[in-house]
């Protein structure tokens, strides 16, 4: 039987480390938030409202029925993206016909722009190090 005292010491240590790690992450988030523009912040909520993430991924996370859209803004003309958001049925039977109102579309485009600027999701751009870690 392991002694209770040792268990309590161990759990206190682990909890302390966890809380420090968590607190550190909350305080020093990886990106500065001051530079955010309102429009793209609103666009992010549009993305959530229509649940685009059920079919599309951002940085490889999400559903898999449609393509990853992290860097969509770089590769597609905004007029084409707008066509997809209005009536995608001319391109694919899968994506819903959103008939998205103009202001939501503008906000979403601005979100896709900031998403693209945040980094690259293309896995071919990663370099593999000898110790098994990766970097871009």
């Amino acid at each position, binding site marked *: *039987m*392991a002694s*209770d005292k040792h*268990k309590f010491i*161990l*759990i206190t240590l*682990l909890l302390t*480390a*966890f809380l420090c*790690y968590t607190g550190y*992450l*909350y305080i020093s*988030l*990886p*990106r*500065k*938030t001051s530079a*955010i523009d309102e429009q793209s*912040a609103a666009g*992010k909520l549009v*993305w*959530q*409202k*229509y*649940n*685009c*993430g*059920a*079919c599309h*991924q*951002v*940085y*490889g*996370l*999400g*559903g*898999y*029925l*449609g*393509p*990853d859209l992290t860097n969509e803004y770089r590769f597609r003309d905004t007029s084409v993206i707008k066509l997809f958001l209005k009536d995608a049925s001319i391109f*694919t*039977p*899968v994506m*819903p016909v959103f008939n998205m109102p103009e202001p939501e579309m503008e906000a979403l485009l601005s979100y896709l722009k*900031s*998403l693209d600027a*945040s*980094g690259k*999701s293309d*896995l*071919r751009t*990663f370099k*593999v*190090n000898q110790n*098994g*870690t*990766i*970097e*871009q």
Partner: protein
Amino acid sequence: MEPSNNKQLNTTKLFIVAGLVLLGLGMIYGLTGAIQYLVPGFLKKYFSFEKVRPLHVSAVVFWIILGAMGSVLIYLQQHTGKKLHAPMLTKIQLLVFLFTILAILTSYYFGVFGGREYWEFHPLLALPILSGWILFLFNVVKSIGTLKNQPVYVWMWLTGVVFFLFTFLESYLWIFPYFRNNIVNDMTIQWKSYGSMVGAWNMLIYGSSFFLMEKISGEKTYSTSRMGFLLYFIGLFNLMFNWGHHIYTLPTHHFIQYISYVVSMTELLILGRIIYEWRASVSAARRHFHHAAYKFLIAADVWVFLSLLLAICMSVPAINIYTHGTYITVAHTMGATIGINTFLLLAIAFDILHETCRSFEHNNKLFNRTFFVINGSLFAFWISLILVGVMQSKWQMSEPRILFGAMMLQLRPFLISFFVFGLILTIGIVIIIYPLIKNQLLCYFTPTTNQDHTPTVAKESMSDNDLN
């Protein structure tokens, strides 16, 4: 609270019965989603994929959560030999969860979303879930009393209950613009919370499974042993720090990758132990294999091994770039939520629900056959998902890439086998759970004359005064 009659349906058992109904429903949604890969636009008008996916994922996640809560509430009473601290709260908790789950599934159908991965419902609906969980936490903590001299499963239950609350709250930090506005910040915190949340419900389910294992074998040594606690602490260490493997490719802090990579490798110790203990497990399995519940425990053991193997590979960043963003991730998620969580909860459901006023014997032969069909089809389902993932990975890494739509067409043969084995798996699981639910409900409406009010194990420890 009503009598905890072994053979009667009561509030705590209802958690598991309701969970089983959600499991059946969730798998039907899963099949609907899988068909949409094969027949683009299938049922698009009513069940477009952005509705079906959350319907599927939420239904099965709530099966896991209801099952985990029910198992803890029941086994905790069997462990202490006493009734729960506040039985009334359990009833409220159940009602809160059932109504909220109904509201969530209905809201998806009408296209109302919060749009976050896994918890795709409107954030307002998180409030009742949160309140229900707080009632659960209060009841569990009060019923446990002290942690002194407690077996490892009690530690696991407590850890699971507390960490679920913490990670659930953390997963809603996005409602504050400070956390939400930058996508990299948002995803970092989001996957920190999700990674640990899965660990939290695993703690609840593993805790209950250890309890059940000891109940069946009659040996009470493991749950107080050094090894038992060592594995618990390795599990907790991973719950806290290994979540980074979900976001190795996100341009976030580098140290998240390093910490997660190193911490994940400690899971090799768990893997090593499974291999080392293999012979002993096999001989124990021979002794108890006649138990329906034990069969599922053994099957889950095999799936722990397979899932852990896949998880450890995916935790190496250099391998992760080949599995990330593909169905290999889905293979891991569904392999673990079905092979481990669902199988363990089915073992628990059999233990808790099999004794009713009606005999279960006549189902034995069918059960055995179905059990093997379930395992075979799950394996084929899992391999199909991995193969889909391998094809997607090849595409992701190819230079230049063919069109997305053309790549999807190439996946068809594997997606067909994913659907077919998913269908067989669903039929198998429904055959297994249907009599469990039916017998409980039939007995509920046909009162028995048997007045044995005690849960099986508690019989030894409860005095008559403790009973209702």
